[in-house]
């Protein structure tokens, strides 16, 4: 039985190239070709795919359509696989794509398209519930993770992180206490612990508070 594949890609050149590759492959039944998110959702609902091969960025927003379509597929057709194609290795998209598990998921860079065998192998693997992650994507995930580990913010407990996040939003200690259902004294203790972990030496509290918030915001961006 050939694998039923939906292809979604807004770039004409890539779409036609992949279409040609897949149509020449007897083990693949190309059941739909889509150019945007809406037509992909229609195809997912109607074409009974085994695998969706999709670009990440497509109309209408050109941001994370492929990742969202993969989420939708997980809801309506959980056994189907997804091969996500990306121009660049983007750890944020990769994490969003894989957050509910790697089963039946492949994340490939478009530069791999030159290797037809690799693309077909990825389609076969995800159709069988397996996973393929491009080595370059793994590298960027590891790099992003080690960067996060090196950050002084990684030393904070989840609660301290919450407190600092609220401070960064302009909340006073009393407001933070209110939001987290803590005493003001408990909030102060958290804040002192945050200052210590962020290596902010004792100085005027307002100054340390601003620095801690700047560190927090720098990592958010």
């Amino acid at each position, binding site marked *: 039985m050939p694998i039923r594949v939906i292809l979604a890609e807004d*770039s*004409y*050149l890539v779409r*036609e*190239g992949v279409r*040609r590759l897949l149509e020449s492959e007897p083990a693949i039944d190309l059941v739909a070709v889509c150019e945007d998110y809406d037509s992909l959702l229609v195809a997912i609902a109607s074409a009974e795919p085994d695998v969706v091969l999709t670009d990440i960025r497509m109309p209408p927003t050109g941001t994370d359509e492929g990742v969202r379509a993969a989420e939708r597929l997980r809801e309506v057709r959980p056994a189907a696989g997804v091969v996500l194609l990306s*121009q660049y290795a983007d750890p944020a998209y990769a994490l969003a794509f894989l957050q509910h598990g790697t089963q039946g998921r492949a994340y490939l860079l478009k*530069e791999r*398209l*030159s290797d037809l065998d690799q693309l077909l192998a990825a389609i076969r693997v995800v159709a069988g519930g397996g996973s393929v992650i491009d080595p370059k994507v793994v590298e960027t995930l590891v790099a992003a993770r080690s960067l996060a580990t090196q950050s002084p913010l990684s030393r904070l407990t989840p609660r301290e992180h919450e407190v600092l996040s609220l401070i960064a939003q302009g909340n006073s200690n009393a407001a933070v206490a209110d939001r987290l259902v803590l005493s003001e004294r408990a909030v102060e203790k958290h804040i002192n612990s945050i200052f210590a972990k962020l290596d902010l030496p004792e100085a005027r509290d307002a100054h340390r508070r601003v620095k801690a918030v700047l560190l927090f915001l720098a990592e958010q961006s």
Partner: protein
Amino acid sequence: MPTRPVAVLIVDDQAFFRSAAQAVLAVMPGFAAVGEACSGEEAVARVEELAPELVLMDIHLPGISGIEATRRIRSAHPGTEVMLLSTYRAEDLPGGARECGAIAYLHKEDFEPEVLERIWAERAPS
């Protein structure tokens, strides 16, 4: 009305993009792929041999770049037009891309039959 399609040479080191460009040209009656090359040096040799009217030239190639290959082709064969086709954003184009004699630069993501037809109609000598 042109009676003969525009002869096109496709230059890209990635087989996928050569095949993709072939697929696009196959649906365009006004254009016909007459050959392929995988490097700048091979592109120069293939132009010599095939005398295409248009070269679709990738920029990042092994050996000489697509930009240098375009210079050589335009210098030796002024009747052959070159269109650069790559994945650089316009603002990140390498030096020389705008002065190498190519009629246009196009991002691979923007390459469509209508765009190719328009650029050819607007830029090619009549």
